[in-house]
């Protein structure tokens, strides 16, 4: 029997928990694309098949009540709600509008900052108008120019999706779209030239870019990582870093590089992927079920399941869940190798799903450990040299 995350983790001692401030809402459990690396549909966990296709208004209203309850308990003035999927725009704008209203109506005591993540295929002028009206900021998933993008991101008939994503990119990067543009997520494929990918995206000047490491772990080696000691992903990213770092003015925030520098300087991470700060986000499935980390779907069936839902449980109940507490007490989840490493303050032991193996659960360094070490050392060396010159 596979270990549940709650069993695989070292039980956390009593820890101070941070309230949830970001609610990732799976408003649609289906997608109009069939990307070959997708952590929702193409990996071990197939629980999406049992989910309703969309979040009901009843569930949305209950979610709003739970958010309000949590905000009042913890004196939160603002929270983030992220419309996620699947593809959230599959709901259609009338349904999406009603759903946002259903979440908002009970949240009298807290301001919701709306965000979303889309593959762009359905993002059109009407969507942009809706987003501006609601101050709803969307991130766009696009892997680079057409060849890079369409290698993985195709529809269920195998047809490319670049044209749709490009249309969304054009809309979001316009003066009209820019105020409601969160940024770009691009999954790395080592076969593509990193500078070609970066320069293509840079041409649209997104406010944020994150180049995502393909989801994998010790039993599901990422492409090109046949040997743990190799550093192909660091090498790929560092080519972008050197160009990005020297450009001026630099309007683009590359989240991965930003977090390495910030954590090196003793500040905070901005993404759950780095550092040792408590994770203050939670995933709500279309049926109202709660999950700690949706990307754990790449590890084993049921890995994400907390056994909780918004109808029967509060977000404070989720905070008491061993899986959530483990994510909040990041140190307790680290392998002994990571606890002894001088870089752990930056890498945080690596992203949680990347640590998994059937043999040791999550008690491993990241499958990307060698890449992370090289990336951190090279970036911090450059930064330290610059700061030394200024001191």
């Amino acid at each position, binding site marked *: 029997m596979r270990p549940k995350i709650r069993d695989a983790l070292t039980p956390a001692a009593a820890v101070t928990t*941070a*309230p949830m*401030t970001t609610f990732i809402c799976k408003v649609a459990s289906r997608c109009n694309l069939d990307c070959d690396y997708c*952590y929702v549909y193409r990996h071990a966990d197939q629980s999406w098949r049992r989910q309703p296709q969309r979040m009901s208004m009843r569930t949305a209203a209950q979610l709003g009540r739970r958010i309000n309850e949590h905000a009042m308990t*913890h*004196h*939160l*003035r*603002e929270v983030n709600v*992220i419309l*996620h999927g699947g593809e959230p725009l599959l709901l259609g704008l009338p349904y999406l509008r009603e759903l946002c209203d259903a979440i908002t109506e009970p949240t009298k005591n807290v301001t919701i*900052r709306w*965000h*979303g*993540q889309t593959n762009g295929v359905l993002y059109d002028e009407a969507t942009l108008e809706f987003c501006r009206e609601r*101050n709803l*900021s969307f*991130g766009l998933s696009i892997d680079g120019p057409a060849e890079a993008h369409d290698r993985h991101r195709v529809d269920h008939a195998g047809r490319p999706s670049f044209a749709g994503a490009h249309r969304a990119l054009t809309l979001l990067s316009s003066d009209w779209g*820019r*105020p*409601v543009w*969160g*940024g770009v*997520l691009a999954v790395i494929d080592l076969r593509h030239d990193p500078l070609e990918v970066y320069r293509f995206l840079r041409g649209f000047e997104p*406010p*944020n870019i*994150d180049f*995502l490491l393909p989801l994998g772990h010790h039993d599901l080696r990422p492409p090109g990582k046949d040997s743990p000691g190799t550093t192909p992903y660091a090498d790929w990213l560092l080519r972008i870093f050197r160009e*990005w*770092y020297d*450009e*001026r*003015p*630099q309007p683009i*925030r*590359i*989240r991965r*590089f*930003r977090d390495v*520098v910030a954590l090196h*300087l003793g*500040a*905070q*991470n901005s*993404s*759950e*992927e780095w550092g040792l*700060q408590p*994770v*203050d*986000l939670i*995933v709500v499935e279309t049926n109202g079920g709660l999950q700690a980390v*949706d*990307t754990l779907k790449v590890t084993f069936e049921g890995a994400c399941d907390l056994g909780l839902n918004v109808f029967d449980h509060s977000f404070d109940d989720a905070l008491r869940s061993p899986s959530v507490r483990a994510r909040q007490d990041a140190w307790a989840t680290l392998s002994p190798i990571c606890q002894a490493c001088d870089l752990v303050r930056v890498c945080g032991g690596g*992203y949680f799903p990347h640590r998994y193996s059937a043999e040791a659960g999550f008690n491993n360094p990241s499958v990307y450990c060698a890449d992370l070490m090289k990336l951190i050392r090279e970036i911090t060396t450059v*930064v330290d040299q*610059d*700061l030394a*010159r*200024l001191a």
Partner: protein
Amino acid sequence: MDQARESSPVDVSTALADFGLGSVDALEGSALGNILTEVYASRDGAGAAGGVMHSSHSSFSQHSSTSW
């Protein structure tokens, strides 16, 4: 406690002066200058994230106007 407050921008000169560094002109508008500015602004922010909102791996929790 305002967990969700995001940092307000400050200029790079102020940020670097607080770090005890000297001339800052060299970093104005650079990636490092932007990060230092954000780091400075977030240090006094309240909440578990020190004023910085955590984003999930697969989305952003920032509007473009507050990116840096």
